[in-house]
């Protein structure tokens, strides 16, 4: 399988997302195309990973879980980085849609991160002999999952939308301090988990299938985050609109619209 096919898929996903951002009129259908690309890409990517990719000369077939594990964690980190960016931007701009974006990205990131860590544990059992080990990469990954669970819990505990947005942004910024440590942990402490690989360090077929899966999961990440963002926006609109949307004579609630 030539590498350029995967790059075409990746570019198509990114291009469609660019169109989605640039032309609001296309937002009704672009995400559906992305969803089809994502699901189709994951299905075909799984076939490529299981049947087409050559077996590893040391790990045999076990390594094939890498084709799902690595892109899942990449997408988790990507979504959580967007969460960090949106949190910082919120503190400057005070725009509730940025808060909706950070909520959406935190949930999607936590979802992909959880799947990625579970897949890693399944891989670790036959390879390392244990489901879990407290090596720096796994420890920081576990911290990431629990920290962002706390972040989402905080959102449930605060009712005022403005306060919730500000506090979540602060917690999101503090939580993001784990992400660079997670990424660089395999370089700083050479422990059990192997280092990041690159295009030059692996078989071109394996690399292109990994890229194919990454592109497909990128499409799904965008679709999930966009849909979650829409829900979050709608929730905010309802929270903000409720008092003035009431009819003026509905009991003793003073209405500003009246």
């Amino acid at each position, binding site marked *: 399988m030539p590498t350029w096919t995967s790059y075409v898929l990746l570019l198509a996903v990114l291009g469609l997302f660019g169109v989605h951002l640039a032309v609001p009129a296309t937002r009704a259908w672009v995400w559906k195309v992305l969803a089809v690309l994502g699901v189709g890409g994951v299905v075909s990517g799984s076939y490529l990973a299981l049947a087409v990719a050559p077996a590893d000369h040391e790990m045999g077939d076990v390594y094939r879980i890498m084709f799902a594990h690595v892109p899942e964690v990449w997408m988790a980190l990507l979504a959580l980085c967007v969460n960090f960016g949106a949190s910082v931007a919120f*503190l400057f701009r005070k725009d509730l849609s940025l808060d909706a974006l950070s909520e959406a990205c935190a949930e999607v990131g936590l979802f992909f991160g959880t799947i990625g860590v579970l897949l890693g544990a399944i891989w670790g059992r036959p390879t390392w002999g244990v489901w879990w080990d407290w090596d720096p990469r796994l*420890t920081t990954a576990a*911290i990431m999952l*629990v*920290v962002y*669970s*706390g*972040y989402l*819990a*905080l959102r449930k*505990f*605060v*009712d005022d939308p403005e*306060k919730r947005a*500000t*506090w979540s*942004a*602060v*917690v999101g*910024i*503090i*939580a993001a*301090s*784990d992400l660079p*440590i997670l990424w660089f942990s395999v370089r700083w402490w050479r422990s059990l988990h192997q280092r990041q690989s690159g295009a030059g360090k692996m078989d071109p077929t394996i690399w292109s299938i990994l890229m194919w899966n990454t592109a497909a999961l990128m499409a799904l990440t965008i679709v999930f985050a966009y849909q979650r963002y829409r829900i979050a926006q709608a929730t905010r609109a309802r929270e903000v609109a409720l008092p003035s949307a009431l009819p003026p004579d509905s009991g003793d609630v003073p209405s500003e619209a009246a």
Partner: protein
Amino acid sequence: MIDASAERGIAFRPQPIGLFHSAAIVFWKDLLIEWRTRARLNALIFFAVATLLLFSFALGPDTALLRQNAAGYLWLGILFASVLSLGESFRVETENSSMDGLKLAPVDARAVFLGKAVGNGPMLFALSFVLLPILVALYDVSIAGGLAALVGVLALGCAAITAPGTIYAAIASNARARDVLLPLLLFPLLVPALLASVKASALVLQGDPMHQLGSWLGLLAGFNLIYWGLGFTLFPRVVED
């Protein structure tokens, strides 16, 4: 100059108080409240001592095992007590809306952070000193050899708990279910600091043949640097209206 402006009917304006001065005032105010009631430190000591006792009951009378894990129990005791201490330090501000009064004074919010964080640090530090003799008595460790190094580890570790703890306590004190929220937010974040503190204390208590103490202290110092910086920068956003 003042005389001239007074003659023209312009009121004398006091100079705004500097950041560190107002931080010191907030710190002094909290210390005074604590000294007059002495409720918090007493409660903390009893709580932490009870925690240490419970650990030894949970494991049974195996002295070798207890000695081996002493550093971990010490830091868990401090960590659990820190949640009480941090929550209490902001409860006095939410009662009677004292925080609004502080903000109207006007006190720079960063000064409130510094005052609170610097106030909570010594509280935990003092607590850890009370726990040391109990550690010796219950878990049969010897601290005489590395007392100076242990004091350093305790100071760095307590500071590492306080900086993120102060900012999260400020958030939790205004939210629903604050008693649940503070540990939920704080404990995962403190895992690296807890790890480094426990490892460093264990190395001090049990000997350091491989000279690893420096790298753990470095990790603690880095953790402190990051979270004191983040707390100082972000705290004004937490308490603003």
